[in-house]
């Protein structure tokens, strides 16, 4: 009982040092939260579409891509004989040149050095 009653009293200085440590820890915690990047807000459908459009270069590029896509689908779905005569519509079309290009692509030795 004597020893229990003789427990040391806490000094004012120690009390304030401990509270200062607590305040310092709270401040440090707040600072670390502030330095984290803000959470990115979800774009939504409209925002996502606008973001993609900006990435590829805007409306003109998007339109060109769309036309190319449609042409590719058309060419892939139509039979070759339906194209006969089509070449006459193309300006500066030279059948000989076209043949040469084809021949070159099959001649593995043409491009060899020496």
């Amino acid at each position, binding site marked *: 009982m*004597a*020893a229990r009653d*003789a427990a040391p*009293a*806490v000094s004012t200085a120690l*009390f304030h040092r*401990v*509270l200062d*440590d607590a305040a310092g820890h709270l401040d440090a*915690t707040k600072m670390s939260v502030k330095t984290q990047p803000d959470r990115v807000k979800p774009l939504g459908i409209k925002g996502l579409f606008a973001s993609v459009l900006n990435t590829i270069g805007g409306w003109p590029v998007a339109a060109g891509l769309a036309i190319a896509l449609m042409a590719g689908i058309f060419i892939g779905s139509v039979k070759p004989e339906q194209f006969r005569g089509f070449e006459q519509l193309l300006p500066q079309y030279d059948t000989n040149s076209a043949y040469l290009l084809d021949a070159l692509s099959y001649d593995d030795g043409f491009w060899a050095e020496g």
Partner: protein
Amino acid sequence: MELPLDATSKATDEELLQDFSNGDPAAARALTLRFLPRVLGFATRMLHDRHEAEDVAQEAMLRLWKMGGSWQSGEAKVSTWLYRVVSNLCTDRLRRKRTVPIDTIAEPEDKQATAHAVLLQADRAQALEAALGALPKRQREAIILRHLEELSNPDIAQIMGVSVEAVESLTARAKRTLTKLLAPRKTELGFEDDK
């Protein structure tokens, strides 16, 4: 400084710790009022050095502030955890200094004439502190936590990292050693007068 009783909060230790980790400075004050006296008392009895005990107490509370956000509810009591931190910090400090034998401890200073009972109480407290200082560290820790901090054996077992049976054995041995150390001063400390 006389600290007011911790009547400001009926919250549990864990609730206060959660409030603190959520940024509430009032929770820090409540926790300090609640734990700092106990932590300082335990450290002082273990180290017999007021300045070192204050350093240990401050360090232990700092670790509590840092622990706040990651406290796992239900695993252990906050008080038990804190006592364990103090115990470990005291062990580190004690390893750096020798234990002082009771014979080398100075006699109590002469005091002015006051009530006989008050003087006697002070002398007994000082004699007990000196005897505690002469105990092996584990016995000292066990008996301080049991009879001065008034913790239960299971809590002490958790703090010291031993079984409940080991705690009982340590406190029994500590009592026998203290009796042996204090017996020669029985008359001087007025224990015979108490009969």
